[in-house]
């Protein structure tokens, strides 16, 4: 009898928990569309804390509107692309999507998304184009035509622990030689069990260092991959010099430790309250880490504990370069979030209004508020210079450094080619091979270049055979 009671209670509990979860899940997405408004269906990839910021932007837009009503649908994870393709093929796409992968050329080429001129009047598109920073424009464009509208930039720079540099009498790096000196001072070559490194290059960052070393990965005039160019070769050799200094196995093991930190903590930050230094003195990362630094400093201040001080600087230029190659200052790899407008969407005009609202084309104050809430870099100098945002960057100089870098013409995205995802994977794989295997770097770069070029040629042939997909 007792067993049956237990089963019944267990079953009842399961049903109750299931109902609560279903209720919670449906209540977040269930939105009542007012009768006098047109619905705009908005898919986005944001999750966690950022989803709340997105919901707030949507709420503010809906409050500002008498004609349109945006219904946001969160699709975190990496299935958004497949869902979009199927929805377009099935004739029921959303009206607008926010995405951050380098997919604009692929989607545009396949006819999954419309160019902005198919969504809005040409004059307005031209005006919006002028409104954007150069990096935001590059991220929105494929073959000279705008197929996306960038609504937030992600910039990388070097974070450093000023307190740690002071301890060793070091200055923030201005050249790669300075960076090498910091690395050597904190973790001298040949030292035993290293607990903290000055700096370790990350294989994903060849994109950034390649541009800093004056290189490029793609020649868009000749449609040629240029990964084996002397500049990229020099950048990769400099990165691989850390393998020679510390050994590939040690670097690989230490890097894994970064991922094991509780809550994927930013490895520049100390873990325990009695520490002032993290696992590195210098780390390359994006502007979103500023929040974590500020949170640590504020918490320690509130608890009366000493807090380390941190700084941000642009990627240092190389001290030596091959003949004919010029380094770029304030350079790096940029990516960002962007809106796209699926083919055959029902409510293009509502989607366009929402996109303009987000980037601050009509009200820079609203965009400033969004960027401050989300820790995102505005896509327009007008928003950067708006009083509210200026006040924010003045109070947060670390974040301000990233905003300054965003306006640099030397910030480049992944080449806007069809197959950009494959391009990105191949370059990062080459970087891994250089850092962690004994293969000669020239050979790695040539082989990668050949692989990518074959893919580009294949795509180019298809483009010539069937120019831009059926619309």
């Amino acid at each position, binding site marked *: 009898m007792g067993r049956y009671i237990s089963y019944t209670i267990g079953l009842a509990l399961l049903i109750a928990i299931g109902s609560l979860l279903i209720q919670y899940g449906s209540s977040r997405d269930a939105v009542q569309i007012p009768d006098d408004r047109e619905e705009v269906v908005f898919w986005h990839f944001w999750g966690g804390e950022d989803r709340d910021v997105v919901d707030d932007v949507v709420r503010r837009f809906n409050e500002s509107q008498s004609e349109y009503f945006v219904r946001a649908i969160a699709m975190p994870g*990496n299935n958004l*692309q*497949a869902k979009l*393709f*199927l929805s*377009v*093929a099935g004739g029921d796409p959303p009206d607008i999507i926010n995405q951050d992968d380098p997919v604009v050329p*692929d989607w545009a080429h*396949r*006819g*999954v998304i419309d160019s902005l001129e198919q969504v809005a009047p040409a004059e307005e598109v031209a005006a919006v184009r002028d409104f954007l920073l150069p990096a935001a424009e590059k991220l929105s464009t494929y073959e000279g035509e705008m197929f996306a509208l960038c609504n937030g930039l992600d910039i990388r720079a070097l974070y450093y622990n000023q307190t740690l540099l002071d301890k060793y009498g070091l200055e923030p790096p201005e050249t790669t030689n300075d960076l090498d000196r910091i690395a050597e001072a904190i973790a001298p070559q040949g030292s035993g069990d290293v607990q903290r490194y000055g700096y370790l290059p990350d294989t994903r960052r060849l994109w950034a260092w390649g541009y800093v070393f004056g290189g490029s990965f793609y020649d868009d005039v000749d449609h040629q991959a240029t990964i084996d160019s002397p500049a990229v070769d020099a950048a990769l050799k400099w990165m691989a010099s850390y393998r020679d200094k510390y050994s590939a*196995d040690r670097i*690989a*093991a*230490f*890097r*894994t*430790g970064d991922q*094991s930190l509780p809550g994927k903590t930013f490895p520049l930050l100390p873990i325990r309250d009695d520490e002032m230094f993290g696992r590195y003195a210098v780390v390359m990362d994006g502007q979103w880490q500023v929040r974590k630094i500020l949170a640590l400093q504020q918490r320690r201040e509130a608890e009366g504990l000493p807090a380390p001080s941190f700084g941000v600087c642009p990627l240092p230029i190389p001290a030596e370069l091959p003949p004919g190659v010029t380094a770029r200052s304030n350079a790096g790899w940029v990516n960002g979030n962007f809106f796209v407008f699926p083919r055959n969407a029902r409510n293009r005009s509502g989607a366009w209004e929402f996109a303009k609202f987000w980037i601050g084309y009509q009200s820079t104050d609203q965009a400033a508020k969004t960027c401050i809430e989300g820790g995102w870099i505005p896509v327009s100098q007008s928003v950067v210079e708006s009083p509210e945002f200026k006040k924010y960057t003045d109070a947060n100089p670390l974040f301000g450094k990233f905003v300054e870098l965003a306006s640099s013409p030397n910030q480049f995205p992944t080449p806007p080619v069809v*197959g950009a*995802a*494959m391009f990105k*994977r191949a370059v*990062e*794989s080459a970087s*891994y*091979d250089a850092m*962690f*295997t004994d293969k000669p770097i020239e050979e790695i770069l040539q*082989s990668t270049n050949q*692989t990518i070029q074959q893919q580009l040629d294949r795509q180019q042939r*298809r483009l010539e055979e*069937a120019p831009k*997909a*059926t619309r």
Partner: protein
Amino acid sequence: MPNHSTTETGDDSDSCEEVTPSGGSRSRAGWLFCSPWILGFLLLFAWPFLASFYWSLCHYDLINPPEFVGVENYQRLVSEIGTDRGFGLALTNTLYYSLLSVPLSVIVGVGLAALLSANVRGQGIFRTLVFLPSIIPVVAASVLWLWLLDPQSGFINYVLSWVGVESQNWLNQSRSAVSGEGLAVVTGWLDGQPLKLMGSKDALVLMTIWGVGNFVVIYLAAIGDIPNAMYEAAAIDGAGPLRRFWHVTIPMLSPVIFFNLVMGLIRSVQTFASIYVLSEGTGEPGGSMTMISLQLFLSAFTDFEMGYASAMAWVLFVLLLMATVALFRTSRHWVHYRTQV
């Protein structure tokens, strides 16, 4: 011919007629009962199966209509074989994983089953412990292994350190133990260099062996089915435990070993979820986790090259078919069915 039967009771008012369904209506009923399965088979298996063959001869991106290109996708696959990119890399990785994990699973599975069949105290607990990993969902198990294989704080390296083996980089290392590079590491170790041998594919093999419990259950059942008389006869003939295991247990288990070999081979080539979780869907480090299943997925759903991915699926199908046929051909030499003993 309808099948009518009438029962006479001798009382006109109380007669009844029992009717059984005609052949036609029985047939209709049969088809009706089968129809959900038939529909499912045709729509969800037969049609995609045939369609994927047609798509393998096309450029197809899901959005635009398939464009027939003949054998171009197959030519591309062939051109990549023997290289360290695309399908060539995936094929090499898959072969490495299958050729190591399948035989090891059989050896470890049979060994464990032999040990677990011994009548010792706590037998049930040991059997449960061996079987338990195979019922843990693959995603949960993969996340668990991410922690276990951490080079700095993972339990596996901790255990290795007890026996003086230095920590391995496991999932952060593209090189593999059974390879030319692995041999160079061993040679270097003999010269006093660190023995950093194990890589990501070896980690995957280790995970597979950890989950060998469901095969062990089958081996255990088969061992329990071996007549005691055979062991007694062997003992009378002077065979010791090892000879009995080799000359009685293994031959009697051979049909089950054969079954597990074929199933293990198919399963190893289809392994996807654990690879996806361990490499965060990228096949990294250095492409060492890019198995055919992942390469197929990335080509289809990241690069949207459905034609190329379909061609890869068909090549995979043919390779598996050939391997299975080869196993069946060899089976007549080493698989002993009871009637033949």
